[in-house]
């Protein structure tokens, strides 16, 4: 195939044309440009200062694999150290294979790896147990609603365990744009306003968190992984077809076909949003149970687990969250259940 010369090294034949700039680059120069852009994102946003101990959320998937690889390349220049943290949500037939990929990466890149499991952190509640608990109501199981909250908490715990000062995740521009759409569709003004910017400073004692790949398109993440020959796990989570995010993703793909810049434009729009005074939420306080940042009596994680343990899993889901703010009599902490395949008993 007659291909132009690489516009950067002028030596090799170009292997792709970058979607945004239209620049024709060979594989090696594209990867170098990708890494340079991530470096710029981190430096311009002062995201990871020298001396930072960075916990990298590692799922084995394409985004966190690329994230870990790029940060490992940039670590000497940034003066940071890396620690892979993988979360085991307890999803049979999926997570084990993904964790195997993370273990291979840790060995290949000589990076320390810590695995934290829902079963240990959340009193035996694996995602499979949550799915069983929420099944059969005739409505969507909302597994991903639970998982999103709990995984964030699990990653935080894992990061603390390894003494990290910062947490990074592999969210790319497409992920961010989907999140913007989801927040609009759910009328979540608070999240819309907080969602902009490159990272959270870490309020309420939480570790500062950022997403160095936030401005990289998903397509380029996949191409980087290809040209660097990275080994990653590429299957969809067993519960993913149920996720509301799928609708946002479909809509985004259609929008992108009509207007290619839509993905980044959405992200930038959210960055520039300001809430009307009436919409601004009150300043958050602390969870009465675990002390984490919370806008109500209980933080999201404690509220969801509370619902699960009371046998009313949907208690904390949805706008009303009725019955939640009443703390009720103090409960005994849930004893840690052994890791078995028996279903969690129905209350």
């Amino acid at each position: 195939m007659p291909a132009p010369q690489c516009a950067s090294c002028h030596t090799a034949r170009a292997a792709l044309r970058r979607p945004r700039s239209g620049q024709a680059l060979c594989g090696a120069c594209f990867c170098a440009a990708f890494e340079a852009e991530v470096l710029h994102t981190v430096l311009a946003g002062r995201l990871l200062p020298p001396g930072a101990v960075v916990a990298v959320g590692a799922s084995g998937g394409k985004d966190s694999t690329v994230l870990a690889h790029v940060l490992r390349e940039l670590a000497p220049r940034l003066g940071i150290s890396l620690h892979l943290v993988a979360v085991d949500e307890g999803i049979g037939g999926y997570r084990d294979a993904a964790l195997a990929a993370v273990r291979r990466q840790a060995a290949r890149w000589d990076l320390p790896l810590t695995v934290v499991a829902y079963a240990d952190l959340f009193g035996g509640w694996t995602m499979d147990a949550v799915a069983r608990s929420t099944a059969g109501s005739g409505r969507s199981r909302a597994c991903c609603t639970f998982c999103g909250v709990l995984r964030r908490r699990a990653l935080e715990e894992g990061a603390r365990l390894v003494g990290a000062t910062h947490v990074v995740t592999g969210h790319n521009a497409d992920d961010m744009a989907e999140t913007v759409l989801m927040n609009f569709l759910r009328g979540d003004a608070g999240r819309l306003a907080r969602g902009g910017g490159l990272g959270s400073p870490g309020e309420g004692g939480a570790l500062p968190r950022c997403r160095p790949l936030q401005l990289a398109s998903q397509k380029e993440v996949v191409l980087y992984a290809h040209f660097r020959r990275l080994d990653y796990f590429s299957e969809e989570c067993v519960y993913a077809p149920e996720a509301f995010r799928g609708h946002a993703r479909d809509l985004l793909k259609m929008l992108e076909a009509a207007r290619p810049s839509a993905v980044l434009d959405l992200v930038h729009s959210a960055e520039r949003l300001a809430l009307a005074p009436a919409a601004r939420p009150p300043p958050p306080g602390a969870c009465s149970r675990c002390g984490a940042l919370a806008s109500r009596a209980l933080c999201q994680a404690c509220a969801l687990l509370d619902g699960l343990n009371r046998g009313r899993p949907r208690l904390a889901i949805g706008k009303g969250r009725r019955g939640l703010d009443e703390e009720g009599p103090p409960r005994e902490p849930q004893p840690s259940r052994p890791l078995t395949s028996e279903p969690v008993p129905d209350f």
Partner: protein
Amino acid sequence: MAAPLLVEVEFRGSVELLFNSVEKNLLVWIKKNLLKEQSGQSCSSLQSGVLVLINDAYWELLNYQLQNQDSILFISMLHSG
């Protein structure tokens, strides 16, 4: 299509689960003969979540006739990472 072509086809990213029928003869052949799970849909173009690389190069606008010994790589992007 004139003379038969020998092409090497590779799938990555679980893309084999995602195929829809397409207007290009080659891809219809692949769907009929290689696909394990038939997708119920029939669209006129590849789902936008699949990257197509020919001879290890990615060009968004393909105005190219496949040649003998070409290698085609399909990569799915549709899983979360």
